[in-house]
């Protein structure tokens, strides 16, 4: 803790503040792989948050386990009702969610509901890499977001939480006075950092209050605010995934002093002192992260929250059916028991199997049935190279937008890949959110070479990946076909063309339906050949009539 407060120092502080105000601050989201740092932090949780008891949750925890209910196994064994207590039933506990990145939206919804009631606090241990992360519904309800990646052995100290201090601070918490202008400054700061969620400033205020209480003050001072806001706002400044894309691509790579200054001028804040103070306390690498994330976002790898959801894809459960077990049939245990239940009294009086608690006959067997309908995924591969940009990128965009509208009406998933310069980027992973798709599309700049093969490769990989998830991919390629960048990044027309052909054949081998839309000024024979290699429909983009494209695609793809 020599220069700026280290990550470890922040972690320690976050834990102490949370101990003072466990329910008000919601909890901590800790992104970290397993390791010494994480272990030591977890070990400190118990004593830190005492007298609350730790309750461990895992992402696949069932409703019965969470809320309590009938213990089916025990009930069957005992022949009388055996209830089990839910994990959330106990009031004085704090929850630790392991492998938090795997928590499905359903669990996220339940936990957020619980956090809203203000009875528990939650420590989400997130081991996710890259795109995997805790569901935002939970993340936004936790005051502190910590990231232990890059933390080395040397940075880790002892975590000692003195319970007498905490207890004393708890007593002082409510009485801490807050000047109106400090509330204002916290709010302004949030706006300036681009944090729109009002929970963040509320958390910052509570954290500041807890900090003042911890230091034994009766009133909030600037120092508390600075410390609290750097803890709460720091990670959130780049967390917000719904932040609209900046209009021009150049702008978001330099999120440093200059850009911040511009923003500040626009907002005309009354004082910048607080912001400066806060930025000064941010760990150094945070700004680097900010930059790298900004770049990543520009490259379009940022995940839409829709991507991992399986909710609508599981197939609609149909009523269970009477039938025989075996083969691929799955037993619907509950339905079976239900079918058997009314007969128990009669069957019990039967002459045989008197020792049985539950009498199930083969006629009771019920099987699970699902209506499995795989969804269609439309992958747009858009050429954003210099030549295309000159030609008809805007028209291509118009065509994609119309197709999107069709896709929306049919509840298809869409994904967007753009290729330009030397590589292809997945601008949008499969999603149903039109708003996002449209934003990404609008923010798509043109220019650079035409790495057609790379675009096709990205499309193929995405198609394969999503096929395993139960989606049916279709590729729509919009290009003017003058491939000039090969797969290895070399600028050679011949190699680029042969790479594109090879890639097209591989896509055909996977039997992914495709359509090629020629956005060039005039029709290209090379593209017609490519369409043949792809076993795809070739369609020259009709002049200034995007509607025709959409109709054509509709009829070709059915």
């Amino acid at each position, binding site marked *: 803790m020599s220069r700026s407060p280290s990550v470890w120092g922040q972690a320690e502080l976050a834990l102490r503040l949370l101990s003072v105000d466990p329910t*008000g601050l919601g909890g901590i989201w800790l992104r970290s792989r397993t390791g010494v740092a994480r272990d030591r932090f977890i070990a400190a949780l118990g004593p830190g948050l005492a007298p609350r008891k730790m309750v461990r949750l895992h992402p696949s925890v069932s*409703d019965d386990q969470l809320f309590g209910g*009938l213990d089916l196994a025990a*009930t*069957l064994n005992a*022949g009388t*009702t055996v209830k089990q207590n839910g994990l959330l039933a106990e009031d004085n506990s704090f929850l630790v969610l392991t492998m938090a990145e795997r928590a499905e*939206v*359903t669990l996220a*919804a*339940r936990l957020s*509901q619980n956090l*809203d*009631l203000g009875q528990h606090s939650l420590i989400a241990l997130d081991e996710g890499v890259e795109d995997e992360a805790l569901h*935002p*519904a939970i993340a936004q309800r936790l005051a502190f977001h910590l990231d232990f990646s890059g933390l080395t052995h040397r940075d880790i100290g002892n975590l000692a939480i003195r319970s007498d201090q905490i207890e004393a601070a708890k007593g002082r*918490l*409510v009485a801490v006075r*807050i000047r109106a202008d400090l*509330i*204002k400054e916290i*709010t*302004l700061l949030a*706006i300036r950092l681009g944090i*729109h*969620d*009002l*929970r963040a400033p*509320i958390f910052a*205020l509570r954290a500041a*209050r807890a900090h003042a209480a911890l230091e034994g003050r009766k009133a909030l001072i600037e120092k508390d605010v600075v410390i609290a806001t750097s803890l709460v706002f720091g990670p959130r400044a780049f967390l917000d995934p*719904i932040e609209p894309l900046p209009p021009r691509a150049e702008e978001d790579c330099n999120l440093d002093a200059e850009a911040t200054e511009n923003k500040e001028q626009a907002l005309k804040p009354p004082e910048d002192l607080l912001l400066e103070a806060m930025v000064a306390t941010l760990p150094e690498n945070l700004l680097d992260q900010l930059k790298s994330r900004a770049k990543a976002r520009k490259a379009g790898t940022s995940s839409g*929250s*829709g991507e991992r*959801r399986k*909710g*609508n894809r599981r197939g*609609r459960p149909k*009523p269970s059916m009477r039938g025989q077990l075996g083969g691929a049939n799955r037993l619907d245990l*509950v*339905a079976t*028991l*239900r079918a058997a*239940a*009314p007969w*128990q009294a*009669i069957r*019990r009086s039967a002459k045989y199997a008197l020792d049985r608690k539950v009498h199930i006959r083969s006629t009771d067997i019920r099987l699970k049935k699902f209506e499995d309908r795989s969804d269609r995924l439309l992958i747009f591969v858009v050429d954003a190279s210099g030549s295309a940009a000159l030609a008809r990128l805007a028209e291509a965009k118009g065509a994609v*937008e119309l197709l*999107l*509208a069709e896709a*929306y*009406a049919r*509840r298809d998933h869409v994904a967007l890949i753009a290729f330009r310069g030397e590589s292809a980027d997945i601008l949008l992973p499969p999603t*149903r*959110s*039109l*708003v*996002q798709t*449209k934003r990404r599309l609008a923010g798509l700049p043109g220019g650079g070479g035409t790495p057609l093969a790379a675009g096709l490769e990205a499309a193929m990989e995405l198609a394969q990946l999503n096929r395993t998830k139960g989606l049916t991919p279709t590729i729509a390629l919009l290009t003017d076909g003058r491939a000039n960048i090969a797969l290895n990044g070399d600028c050679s027309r011949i190699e680029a063309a042969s790479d594109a052909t090879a890639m097209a054949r591989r896509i055909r081998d996977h039997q992914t339906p495709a359509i090629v839309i020629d956005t060039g000024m005039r029709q290209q024979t090379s593209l017609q050949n490519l369409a043949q290699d792809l076993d795809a429909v070739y369609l020259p983009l009709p002049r200034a009539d995007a509607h025709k494209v959409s109709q054509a695609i509709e009829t070709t793809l059915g």
Partner: protein
Amino acid sequence: MTQAFPFSAIVGQEEMKRAMVLTAVDPTIGGVLVFGDRGTGKSTAVRALAALLPPIRVVSGCAYNSDDPRACPDPDSVTDTEIVERPTPVVDLPLGVTEDRVVGALDIERALTQGEKRFEPGLLARAHRGYLYIDEVNLLEDHIVDLLLDVAVSGENVVEREGLSIRHPAKFVLVGSGNPEEGELRPQLLDRFGLSVEVLSPSDIDSRIEVIRRRDQYETDQKRFLKRWSKEDAKLRNEILAARARLGKVKAESFILEECARLCIALGSDGLRGELTLLRAARALAAFESKLSVEREHLKTIAASALRHRLRRDPLDDAGSTVRVQRVVDEVLV
């Protein structure tokens, strides 16, 4: 158990608050859909509404919230026929809920232990005469949403399963909230909600500050804060009750009906639900404003909430349906 944040203490979000109050005045308007950013007080408003509403009188031993022991759909299950006052139920419907939990199912516990075939009422029974709140309604499995909307419209839950045959009244106001960034609601379902509102984070700094200040006061000194706002809440409650009483007397002249129809035709909304809801909502608004007839102003005020989700969707129109409705309202209701 902490008490809910007072409804009247919610800063701004006038449209959302108005929509919710109107469904309290006239539950037949048929539900509210709240779409907007995270952290804009969607859930806070719904939970606050429950505390605001007058208590209902129910048979204490009846799981179906009946107001009369004779009306209980499952008379054998009534353990206690005393009439008690209970707060208006607001039932949270979590994502991933099973159909069994929603409509009710065979009581397995009884069936297993006593071999008795008995219906265990689900969330729909609990929400009768109150509110059913679904956060992230756009992420709910489609078939559950279908089911909910069907019951919400018919006001009756019919269960035919596992040899059980039961029907019980389930009249509730459906409140759904969600973030359109995470996936859209099917257009067919949108239309079934009576009103829809769009909420945004307050853009002016003063109201943002006010939000945080009030939240802080509420969290640190709840008793005092609730006391301070209870008067406002009581006033609003009385207004709602008065409006309910007045509702039957509010007249709608034929020119108002005509204008409703003209609005809906101009907007090209399908079916007649638009007109009906618009009229009902305008009437509720008139009653709430202590008027005895529906005025053109009422239509103007409520048109966006009642119609914006019924437009033929142009999903890529960023201008949003609010603007389109407003444009048509300005044209039609000169």
